[in-house]
Each structure stands twice: as structure tokens, then as C-alpha cells.
């Protein structure tokens, strides 16, 4: 048995946090939760998750800033990031790509997610 992999779920919507947590836990992952970008950075450093599921539109500090900081932090930049957002995928990808200095996200899911696809991607990215 490999050790339980830890996933950091970042979202400000309580119902979505609950959903993703239960879904991931049911599939054998351990879940850590952050409600905004600042918390996301803290938890990423403290818990060293195997993957981060990141929402973009959040109060306090947006996912955009959190994404940038995660990607620019030498200790954290290797953590795969899956974006889960209400925005349409191609435009966000394009937005990130045009920034040049920032790597694109490892995966992009538009809400509402397809559970199976999401789980397959998480499994794939966490090896």
C-alpha cells in the first residue's frame, strides 16, 4: 500500500469544498482545505500536498495571485495544480500562456466537473 496522498482543495464556496473533499476522501486521498489564496500558500508550505485544486475567483486574495506565487516559489512550483473554475478553459489557459513567465496549469476543469475525469486526472498527476 502506498501512503495516502494529500490534496489541497482551494475554494471559497463551502458546498464545493465539501463536495471535492468527500469525493477525494472516498477515493483514498487525504484532503486539506484553504478558503482563499493566502491560506492556500500557507497550507501548501505546511502540508506539502501532492496536488492542489485551485479556484480562481475568491475574496481576500484571488486564485490568480495564488497561482503566480505557487509557480514562482522554488519549494512549491513542482506541485501539480489543477484549476477548477467557472471560467471557460481556453481563455484562462491563454491568459496564463500569454504571461510567458508563468507555467500553464497542469489541468483545467470547468465547473461543474465530470467526477470521473477529474479523479482520473488527479490520479494521473499524483502518480
Amino acid at each position, binding site marked *: 500500500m502506498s501512503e495516502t496522498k494529500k490534496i489541497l482543495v482551494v475554494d471559497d464556496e463551502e458546498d464545493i469544498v465539501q463536495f471535492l473533499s468527500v469525493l477525494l476522501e472516498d477515493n483514498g486521498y487525504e484532503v486539506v482545505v484553504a478558503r482563499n489564496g493566502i491560506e492556500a500558500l500557507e497550507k501548501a508550505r505546511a502540508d506539502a500536498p501532492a496536488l492542489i485544486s485551485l479556484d*480562481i*475567483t475568491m475574496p481576500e486574495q484571488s486564485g490568480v495571485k495564488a497561482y503566480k506565487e505557487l509557480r514562482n516559489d522554488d519549494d512549491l512550483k513542482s506541485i501539480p495544480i489543477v484549476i477548477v473554475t467557472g471560467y471557460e478553459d481556453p481563455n484562462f489557459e491563454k491568459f496564463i500562456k*500569454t504571461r510567458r513567465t508563468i507555467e500553464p496549469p497542469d489541468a483545467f476543469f470547468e465547473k461543474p466537473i465530470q467526477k470521473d475525469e477529474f479523479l482520473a486526472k488527479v490520479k494521473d498527476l499524483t502518480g
Partner: protein
Amino acid sequence: MTELLENTQLNGMLQQALFEQVPYNIAVIDRDLNLVLANNHFREYFGDWRHKRCFQVYKSCENPCEPCHARKVFETGVAKVSDETGVDRNGRTCHYIVHTAPLKDENGVVQFILEMSRDITETKQFQREYDILFDRVPCYISVLDRQFNVIRANEKYRSTFGEPAGRTCYAIRKHRDTPCRNCPAMETFVDGREHVEEMHGYDVHGKDVYYVVHTSPLARSDQPFQHVIEIATDITYLKNLENQKLEAERLAAVGQTVAGLAHTIKNLLMGLEGGMYMVDSGLKKNNQERIERGWDSLRRNFDKTTQLVRGFLNFSKGRLPDLKPTDPNEIMRQLYELYKDTSHQQGVDLALDLDEEIAPAPLDPDGMEACLTNLISNGIDAAVMSDNEQGRVILRTREEDGALLFEVQDNGIGMDSEVKQKVFTTFFTTKGGKGTGLGLLTTRKIVQEHGGRISMDTEEGVGSTFRITLPRARLEMLYKQTTEKEE
């Protein structure tokens, strides 16, 4: 000189010279209307006059004119001036002015009359051309006296607004009992200068007519005047186009809002998806606590959906903004106070650059605040994202070419051309689930409801400037429309 004039011979020569040299047709007519004497000028103009009667020469007629001016002078002994139409020596119709004077004998009886006439055919031609010009020029032309009575109006004016018939301009065009508040003619009567005003009136059928009026004193400069001329260009067509455009913009904004709404709906769907998963998996595992949590989640998202639909219905009505006279700088100052701390926490310097001379304008302050809030939070985000050491967002107000400008400038990441094209259809806000999720779409909708437009300059790696341009004329027009409706 007196001595010279007393010289009879010289006197005769002088009379002869006067008779032949003056640039008038001169003829003498007896009581039977026979021409008894005429100068060379006369002969050159009317042809041979000998042994003919005046009407035969002047008019090529066989019978005396009716009424006959010559006879009148014979009867009254009083000189007369008349404007006549006749036939010249070449058979062409000619116009001339005749001064008819009685030549009396020593008993005071009129024996002859002296007629001096001068050709005015060319002047008449000019007059006719002027009349045609006045009537046919595709503008409303009228002349007003100081009581605003229309004393003359051209054909286009009469056919559109009806016959003036001694009525006032405000009664004819506006169906009013009192002069208009913004009357340019009144201003011209007061200061003797030209004035321009955009106005709205009604045609004879009661239909709306929009026109731009230029007023000018009907006199040479600096001379006292009693009349003002009004020349108005019809802009109804343009006005209708503009109204249609405003309406189309409003509808387009609503359409785009629907697209933006998708984002919020997706979050709700995901909440419902989560609730269903919890209930399904709870049932499978016979886990009552999970079923209850899932059910709560379903209920919450159902409530949120209901709220959203209600809010959206209000939002999509394409209502007119709630305009009231507002200080544009005050809006910016309030937003600055609201955002400066948040912005500093994120390492972005927020600054004000206000045009202190800027005049108040009819704005919907809540709407404009919502617009600018979106732009400012985007600006802060862009500055945070950039590699600049010091992020900076400037809030600016300006007045330019009759338009009020709000600008939000950041030194952030900027955008490339592809993102630029998408910016108003999909973008991020920092308000998350707490905001409307409609971002720049809301901004654009509100700006368009103010009759304005939103534009941006952006350069990748340098920054972006979002500019809201609100033409004051359109704001005033919308304000007039809303206040008229309230009245």
C-alpha cells in the same frame, strides 16, 4: 452759378442734357395717353414711340391698363410710384419702376404727366431666385419679432409645422403657451449674438421633430434690430438612429450579461452536483449524516439559484440608469478610500489623479461605483501579477471634447491581442462567490446605459488603461428623458 443758370440758353442746354443723359427712360404723356415726348433711353428700351399711346408702347396692349396709373395722376395731380411689368423693344417681358409726376399749367391743371422709369428686371430675377432659395433650402427658416411671432417662414417650415398665421414659434413648434427655457432666439435678442441649440418639437401631425437651431440678429453688426432669423436643420433621422443605437447597445449588453452569467450558474451547478453526490453516496453507504449534509447543500444551492434568477431579472430589464447630478471626483475619492488599504496589503500603490475643475454630471452614482469597482479590482490584480517591483493603479477623471472621462490605469501585466478581444466576454474578478461574477460585463452594461463607451489601451508587460467615456450631451439627453417621464 446763379448767374449762369439765369442764362436761358445755358438753361435750355442743361435741361436737354438732363433729359437725354440721365440713366432713366423719360416720357411725357398727354391727357389722351399719347406719348408726346421721350428720351433716347426710352426709345432704346421700348422701341419707337411716335404716334403711339402709352399702353401700346409700355405693354404692347391695344387697350389701356386697368387700373391706369397715368389717369390717376391726371385726376389727383399727385405723383406716384409703381412697380410694372411690360414688354421691351425686343418683345421680352421686362420689369421696371415708374415714377409718375404731373406737369401742371399756370392754372394748376395737369396737362401732361412725366414718367421716369428704370429697369429692375435683373433685381426681380434675383428676388425670384432668393424666394426659391428661401423656400427650397432644406432647412426650417423663419423670422421672429421680439414677441416671438413668426412673421415669415419658408416652405419647408410651413409644410412641417403648419402656417405661422401670426402665431409664436413656441406655439407652432412646441405646442406651448410660454417661451422655451433654452430659447436661443431670446438669447440673440438679449445679446445680439448668434446662438445654437438642439431642440425638440412636433410637426403638424404631432410627430416628434428634432432639430438644431441657429439664431442670428436680422441686421448688420452693431445695428439695432427688431428681428431674429432662425435656421434649423432637421436631425430627427440621426436622433432616431442614435436612439436605436442606444437601444441596440442596451440589448447587446443584456445578451453579453447572459454569457457572463454562465460563470455564476456553473458554480451553482457544481454545488448541486456535490449535493447529489453526497446524497447518492450517503444512501449507498447508509450514512445518514452524509445524506443530511448533501441535502443541505442541495437546498442552499437551490436558494442561491432562486436569488440569482430574481437578481438577474432585475438586472436584465434594460432599465434607464437612475441619473442624478453627481460630482465625478467624489465617486473616485470614495472608491480610493475603500480600496487603498486592500491595495497596499497586496503591495500595490493606489493613487488619485483628478481634474479638480470637472463639473457635475447626471450619473447613476451606484452604477458608476459598480463599474469602477470592477476596473479597480482588475487593475490591482494585473499589478499584482506583474513583475514590477512597485505595482501602481491610478484613478483618473478628465474632461475632453464634451465628454466626461473616468480612467483606471495600472502598470500591470497588460494583455496580448487575443486576450484583449476576449476581455469583455470572459475575465476574472476577485470577488469570488460573493460578487455577481459578471465583472466587466456589468461595467460595460452600466456604461452603455449611460450612453457611453468603454475602451482600453493595453500593452503586454507595460500595463492597461481602461477608459469610460460619457458624452455629456447624451447624459443630458438621458437625464431629460428620465425627468420628463417622472413629470
